[in-house]
């Protein structure tokens, strides 16, 4: 089953899916392991694992610091690939890699795709690789059947969204607002219009990320989006309360999104 089918199947049973984000090697692989377990046990549908990069241009302070600390701990890309394989082997949800293009380019695109395939990774999110710059990347993604996840932004025109949709697989990642990861987003009328435009431009599931922090944010998204992405918030949580706090936090989010029992 490919990523899109898998997500659509999960959507049969839930009114919104949850995707979470971790930065590999931050604060350690040991903690990553525990955090992933807690996420999966509490009903997360998909996890994006960020391979740290020294220049994470699209990330805000929380994820930026996590990238830098991970690298300062000595995290190597080979460790990240091995960790990805380990997670995909023991947990029955789709795992994605998120990183910046240089990590893949430097590893060698073919070698990276081959490794990711072998690790059982279902998709790749590369925020600094627009499709027009990634000819060989998108060819390899097709060959290896790993979904390249494309991103819509509020500044994307309708025509651009349709163009991106043609290159994307799995689902579309809609960034909730201008800016970098981490800061809270406002979900006003403009936001609804934007999500409407996203929906009209693609038949794939749509995920909404950037600044989603709590149950209320997720409640707003039900009916408008297919998947909510929690990024910086769980990193903050692990920083302040430790890995054990992740399970209850995720469970709390889920309460908002389980289909009502009565119907």
């Amino acid at each position, binding site marked *: 089953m490919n990523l899109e089918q898998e997500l659509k199947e999960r959507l049969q049973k839930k009114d919104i899916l949850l995707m979470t984000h971790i930065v590999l090697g931050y604060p350690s692989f040991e903690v990553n392991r525990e955090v992933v377990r807690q996420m999966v046990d509490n009903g997360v549908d998909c996890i994006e694992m960020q391979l740290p990069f020294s220049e994470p*241009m699209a990330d805000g302070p929380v994820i930026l610091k996590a990238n830098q600390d991970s690298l300062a701990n000595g995290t190597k890309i080979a460790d990240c690939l091995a960790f990805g394989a380990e997670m995909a082997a023991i947990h029955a949800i789709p795992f994605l890699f998120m990183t910046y293009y*240089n990590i893949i380019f430097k590893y060698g695109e073919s070698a990276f795709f081959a490794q990711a395939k072998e690790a059982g990774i279902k998709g790749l999110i590369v925020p600094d690789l627009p499709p027009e710059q990634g000819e060989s990347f998108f060819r390899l993604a097709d060959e290896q059947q790993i979904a390249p996840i494309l991103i819509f932004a509020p500044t994307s025109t309708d025509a*651009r969204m349709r163009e991106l949709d043609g290159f994307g697989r799995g689902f579309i990642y809609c*960034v909730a607002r*201008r800016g*970098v990861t981490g800061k809270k987003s406002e979900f006003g009328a403009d936001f609804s219009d934007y999500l409407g435009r996203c929906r009209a431009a693609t038949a794939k599931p749509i995920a909404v990320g950037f600044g989603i922090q709590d149950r209320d944010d997720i409640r707003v998204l039900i009916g408008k989006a297919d998947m909510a992405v929690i990024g910086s918030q769980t990193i903050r949580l692990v920083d302040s309360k430790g890995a054990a706090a992740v399970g209850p936090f995720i469970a709390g989010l889920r309460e908002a999104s389980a289909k009502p029992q009565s119907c």
Partner: protein
Amino acid sequence: MDKNGYFGNWGGAFIPEVLHQTFEDLKREYIKARQDPAFWQEYLSLMSTYSCRPTPLTHAENLTRHFGGAQIYIKREDLNHTGAHKANNVIGQGLLVKRMGKKRVIAETGAGQHGMATATMAARFGFECTIYMGEVDVQRQRPNVFWMEKMGATVVPVKDGSRTLKDAINEAFRDWVTNIDDTHYVFGTACGPAPFPEMVSWFQSIIGQEAAGQIQARHGGMPARIYACVGGGSNAMGIFGRFLQEPGVELVGVEAGGKGIASGMHAVRLGGTDASPGVAQGYKTMFLQNEDGQMLETHSVAAGLDYVGVSPILADHWEKGRVRFESATDDEVMEALDLTMKMEGIIPALESSHAFVQAFKEAPGLSPSEAIIINMSGRGDKDIFTIAHAFQDPSWKAFIIQKGLEYSK
């Protein structure tokens, strides 16, 4: 530049989707400006009234005599307004910003010269202005921070990563993706995503256009060699541009050798073997990075050369053998600077002094009938603290201690 922003194997535009539309608009505005002769006229007129263009080409007679070889000419970008070539690019982009109707400009800066020029332009054109500068560079280029703030700019010290130029660029991009609607990012060098490398080189090409006429008039022919320091590569592209079409003119880019290539503490991307192809900060070039693609720490006494990447256009000229790359160490730079001050009464910036080092090495081997041009990208006033420190100047030290005491009362 091809349609994807490449120069040979280098360049491109590796940008997050949120910037896509802004880059489309910028490309359109840039192409329109290039096709509009009135735009360049307006630019030239501003550069000759608000700044001192054309800048002089000085025959360095004493240095020429001292080295006993080629006639040494110095292209005086230090006499450009704000004291460096940076204003050429900034005023050009400022005119584009006016056309685009944006109200706020942001910029990264290393040596502070690009920040200075941007703050100046913003004051003159009435834009709001924020400058991102690595914390390390804020310390070593303090005079420029002072002037930027005095001209109304907000200077944000960047505390991430190596706290130098590349980190300032990342932070400026983070601001831009947040405030795209009313903000233009005045990129400071011939790097970054397309169209910046070509656009910045276009504005800087004024240096070489002037120099070609000046050397013809003074020397009666083309120079044998031209030397320029290479940080991101904008002053080098500026002076090289006009001469690329002259096969007899050898073009020499000088990178920061820092504490020596062998020490690993340098910023030599094209003139050594430590760099490898990569994609970061929106473009593909030769980067100083490790085997995993993580950027390395760089080092130079000159903040403006202390950078992990280099212009994709220069990478293309390097690969094709059109531009030769050399490097100068921190120590060599201090010596060349000292000599230039004593013999010519000229104070080159630490960045520019790199070009002087290589020219001094090669001048004796050329004949007195030949001419060479050194692009003096900027003046050294901004470096007063660093230079005084390097020379361990006793009276300056005493003065600083005195001032410190006065302020701590």
